């Protein structure tokens, strides 16, 4: 099959850029630890409030200025309703849902994960700036979806 010379050049440049780009993403994800949220950690959605650690949602210190944050996204709110995080803290979020699918997004940060019933999602974020961060549900979950929000205070 004949391919025009200019088309060969065009495709070669395009494909080269593509692989550079994929390489950058891959190095970022696997060598520098910038993975999307993940975790294969199952939980019975009907027993979330009885299952450790979600029987006691909130912050748990695990190191020097390092915390686990166990959060429940439910229709239509978050537990704990208010949370305070020390400035500069590295927070390992663990999020699940006892009912339908929700989103867990902290605006102005890279924290954006799906709370799927039956699974616990994991993501780590370091809060370097003080402020009152807005946490909202970004997946449609029912009639009160737009009211599903809370804040995290970093100071």
């Amino acid at each position: 099959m004949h391919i025009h010379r200019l088309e060969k050049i065009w495709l070669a440049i395009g494909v080269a850029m593509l692989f550079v780009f994929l390489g950058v993403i891959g190095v970022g994800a696997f060598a520098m630890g910038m993975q999307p949220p993940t975790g294969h950690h199952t939980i019975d959605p009907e027993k979330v409030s009885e299952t450790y650690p979600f029987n006691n949602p909130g912050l748990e210190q695990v190191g020097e200025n390092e915390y686990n944050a166990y959060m429940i996204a439910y229709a239509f709110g978050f537990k704990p309703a208010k949370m305070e995080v020390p400035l500069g803290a590295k927070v390992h979020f663990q999020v699940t849902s006892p009912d339908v699918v929700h989103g867990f997004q902290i605006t102005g940060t890279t924290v954006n994960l799906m709370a799927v019933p039956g699974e616990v999602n994991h993501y780590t974020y370091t809060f370097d700036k003080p402020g009152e961060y807005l946490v909202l549900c970004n997946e449609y979950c029912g009639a009160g979806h737009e009211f599903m929000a809370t804040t995290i205070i970093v100071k």
Partner: protein
Amino acid sequence: MTATVMQASAADNKRPFDGKDAKLVLAHLLVAFTALLLGGVAGVLQGLVRGGMIELPSEIGYYQILTAHGVLMALIFTTFFIIGFLYAGVSKTMGGKLLGVVSRMGWAGYVLMTVGTILGTIMILANEATVLYTFYAPLKANPFFYIALVFVVVGSWISGYGIFTQYRYWRRTHKGSVSPLFGFMAVATMLVWQIATIGVAITVLFQFIPWSFGWVEKINIMISRTLFWYFGHPLVYFWLMPAYMCWYICIPKIIGGKIFSDSMARLSFVLFILFSIPVGFHHQLMEPGIAPVWKYIQVVLTFMVVIPSLMTAFAMFATFEQTGRAKGARGLFGWLKTLPWGDVRFFAPFMGMLVFIPAGAGGIINASNQMNAMVHNTLWVTGHFHLTVATTVALTFFGVAYWLIPHVLGKQLTPRMNRLGIIQTIIWLIGMFFMSGSMHTVGLFGSPRRTAYTTYGDHPDAVFWMPYHVAMAIGGTILFIGVILMFCNMIALMRAPKGDEKTAAEFPIGETADAAEPTPKWIERWGVWVGVLVVLILFAYTVPFGDMLVNPAPGSKPWVTW
């Protein structure tokens, strides 16, 4: 191993369209544009609510009309238009009329899809299915909403078999010839559709329907989401491929040029078949239950569609330049001036092409693994697909309608209609500039998609988003004017004056450039392409999906939260 392509001649393009087939085509377009009108009403209401400009009466929910908008626009308008367009081209280029059995399959598919559309719309209007068009479990709609979806999908399958049947008949009766490009591409499009819908069929038939009737107690969420997105991404290629058919086959003829390369056009469609399906995880990057390495592998596979996209872009602009130079254009960009800017059959699809450049770039950002966290479920994504499907695909389909409707009826595309078409296109572009532009921007600031009016207790971040939401509502209102004008144009096209051999609208089927080499026959070895596709799907899904099956997360009971 080469053979001559059956060339469409100018006389073929002008030849009157078969009267019986015309009814089938028009029936599809009527449902498509009715869905566009109703979906447009839902869309403008949403925009105004989100912008804080109106409040809906208490009997209608925001999420209810959001469901109606998504289902009617993304599923019904597109599918009906596509099947109508493909049947028209298949009839035109593969025998001049549909075989009796193919016509019957087309009607059977049409009736099933229409019944499904009506049933689904009733369920949405009754507030029995406020689950949005993605119907994520464990939100539970009325079981008849899922049954309505089955009707639509099964109907589209039967219509697809009709296209395969006509194609097989043509091949059998034209041994040694390469099939017409339209027929080849129609088969490729329907093949993607058949293989993609297997995923949604499995989840609806084996998970949603038994669970929503209460025959089984629980549903596995990750399995249902994975099956949905196995279907959900190739769905967008099912919208895009018919638009590419207009670009590859019809546009060269409309601008008075030739198809740049028949074989490269076919090869790009083969690549679309291979790389449109094993990629669904890029919609699930922010989810648990899928190992990072499998997310990344599907990201890499997703990006392979860059190759046929670049091929298409090259072919388009090569055609434009060759045509311009053949008409005597000089200088590096002189050929731009020779393009028929005043012809809506060119102008609308061309604007669609142009918009696809930023739209495609946005898509690359969305699929970029960890970078998706910046935009996932924000209005950026809504802005993205309002460029891809609601501008690139929609404007191309509108551009097709301006000749397809008069052609099948033996009528004229009058200069007045043409002018209205140009105006409609410009209205669409202006409306979309405001709406999609604001969506992209405010999405980057974090404003979530699929959310009714709220200021989140006057949080400063959310208050800052408000002016963008107002701009979205203004853009949406302009687009609604565009929808109304398009619907009126469609009615006017049906009532256009009759044409004779000279004045009737033609079905523009391009010829291949003389310099292009004959098309190799291996390109039509469908068994090979499907085989490679199956291998790719098994590679991309076996381990992660097997893990969901072998170590399933506890299931969920049904929830009705609206």
